């Protein structure tokens, strides 16, 4: 375990070095020249040349790269070139993070609360109609494109529907049930967050359900479950004391890795619903080739991924006694 950790800790900066190198080469040094982006297509070539020199974009690759990294290590990730012109990227991201984290927390929470019991039920009643239903639901959860769910769910939930049945002389109006986000972001405790969180959670629910179902099926086939039954334990006890804990270990792992994804906004959802999070920020930046923002986001997400991996490895021992003493 100790040697493993040391290897991991040495690997971390190497990984970040490669990630930053690739992103830098593709984004800032490569074809998306920031000055060109900033000035637009019809700028005076002389002005562009002057600005390139001023910003140092005419210097060799390694000089530019080292300067970028040096600044980044001091918390300076450059400035937005387009939409939020001249605002520091670090501040833009810091301002956008709370909305994204709130949205993701709710989505993950919903995913666990719905997915784990659903997967458990399906796995325990394997091949029943319930299982088939849950499996279809899971596949639906990963199959419906977000760009489809966004307008369709918005249509269903945030519009007024008039049902008119002339025969019965009936006219009913339903909704809008949930508001669109528009306007100020009000955080976790507002109805605005429900629809985007629900759409973001479809993927989480699917992953959780699938893992839980597969996990419980695997564990229920283990020899020690037969041992527990041979003791005369009630099925409820067999499941909750002997099976569940074993089946939850991979769930905890996935959850840990998802926490790393907290800082990554879903740009399709955030953009559609107007959530002022990092996803929408990245979406704008990508569309307008505002690469300082994109680069910082890629780095942030990669660091979060690596760190959450490390945390998962560290805490694994508490969940699985087999690893604790090794």
């Amino acid at each position, binding site marked *: 375990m100790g040697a493993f950790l040391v290897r991991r800790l040495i690997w971390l900066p190497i990984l970040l070095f490669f990630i930053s190198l690739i992103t830098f080469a593709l984004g800032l040094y490569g074809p998306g020249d920031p000055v060109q982006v900033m000035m637009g297509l019809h700028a005076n070539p002389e002005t562009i040349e002057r600005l390139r020199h001023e910003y140092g974009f005419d210097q060799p690759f390694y000089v530019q790269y080292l300067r970028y990294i040096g600044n980044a290590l001091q918390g300076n990730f450059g400035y937005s070139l387009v939409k939020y012109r001249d605002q520091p990227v670090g501040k833009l991201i810091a301002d956008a993070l709370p909305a994204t984290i709130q949205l993701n927390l709710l989505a993950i929470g919903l995913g666990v609360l719905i997915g784990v019991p659903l997967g458990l039920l399906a796995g325990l009643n394997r091949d029943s109609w319930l299982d088939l239903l849950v499996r279809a639901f899971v596949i639906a959860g990963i199959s419906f494109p977000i760009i489809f769910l966004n307008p369709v769910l918005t249509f269903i939930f945030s519009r007024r529907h008039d049902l008119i049945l002339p025969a019965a002389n009936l006219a009913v109006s339903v909704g809008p049930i949930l508001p669109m986000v528009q306007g100020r972001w009000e955080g976790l405790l507002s109805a605005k967050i429900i629809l985007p969180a629900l759409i973001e959670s479809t993927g989480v629910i699917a992953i959780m359900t699938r893992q839980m179902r597969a996990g419980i099926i695997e564990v229920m086939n283990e020899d*020690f479950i037969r041992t527990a039954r041979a003791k005369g334990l009630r099925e409820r006890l067999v499941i909750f004391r002997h099976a569940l804990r074993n089946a939850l270990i991979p769930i905890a792992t996935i959850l840990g890795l998802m926490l790393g994804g907290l800082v990554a906004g879903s740009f399709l959802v955030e953009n559609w619903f107007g959530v002022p999070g990092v996803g929408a920020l990245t979406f704008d930046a990508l569309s307008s080739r505002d690469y300082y923002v994109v680069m910082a986001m890629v780095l942030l997400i990669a660091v979060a991924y690596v760190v959450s991996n490390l945390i998962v490895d560290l805490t694994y021992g508490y969940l699985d006694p087999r690893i604790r003493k090794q």
Partner: protein
Amino acid sequence: MGTLLEVKDLRTEFHTQDGIVHAVNGVSFHVDEGETLGLVGESGCGKSVSMLSVMRLIPMPPGKIASGSVLFQGRDLVKVDDEEIRSVRGNKIAMVFQDPMTSLNPVLTINTQISEALELHLGMTKEQARKRAVELLKMVGIPEAEGRIDDYPHQFSGGMRQRVMIAMALSCSPQLLIADEPTTALDVTIQAQITDIVKRLKRELGMAIIWITHDLGVIAGLADRINVMYAGFVIESASNKELFANPLHPYTLGLLGSIPRLDEAHKAKLTPIEGLPPDLIEMPKGCPFHDRCAYRTDKCANENPALELGAVRHQVACWNWQDVQKLRATIKR
């Protein structure tokens, strides 16, 4: 001594995508109180499945007990409700499984795993159960039992884990212990230790034992009586001495021929049985052993022989056991 367990015409099937696997095909036998019965056969012959059927531990679906009865203390275990079968499991009938590495729950302490049966069946409190668990660990020869009771299974070696399994099985003083190849997964030296522990505990506690094995060598020193199984049938049943002295079924002869014997090592070669066991989905019509049998006649391919008395307290299911006996007698001379 009275009869403790009586199994009559037990049939167990598994409904798989490829068809119905006929794992146990009308097995009948009994175990007396305090007796040790050996159950011998190749893997896949239905010996484990028949015992799991007795405990109703067959996964259902795909498994199914198609017919038969299992009489234990005046009750038919096939028919009693779930509540009642649970009161028998681990209490009156306990089981030790083959692989001690996978048969213990990796995330629960030894104490939890032994105590839960005591709390359930004997109504002990946590403290009482813990005390008893320590005694049980001492009984099966685990050193420093007090210090190890809160350890997890992975902290024990294979042999030690199997001792824990035995302690767990014996915790409620069962009348019948079913040992399903308890030594197969262990080193040879450890095998002997485990066998000795079971022998000693049987002397001390007096329970009946059904010992499942594919190894006639292991069972020779343990069992009072031996049942030989093949393709889901009991094909020969006799007392320990009788079976080794006077085997009547060609398959049993084959099994004996494949045991190395020190006293005739230079005379006879080891002779494996040719061929493979039959497909349990498409069972052959006649005797299940006929296409591997050196003594087969036309009748064998068409009719399946039932168990019949071949000698005193010695049953065999073979059309030609008398020829087998004669032929063997001439070879001996």
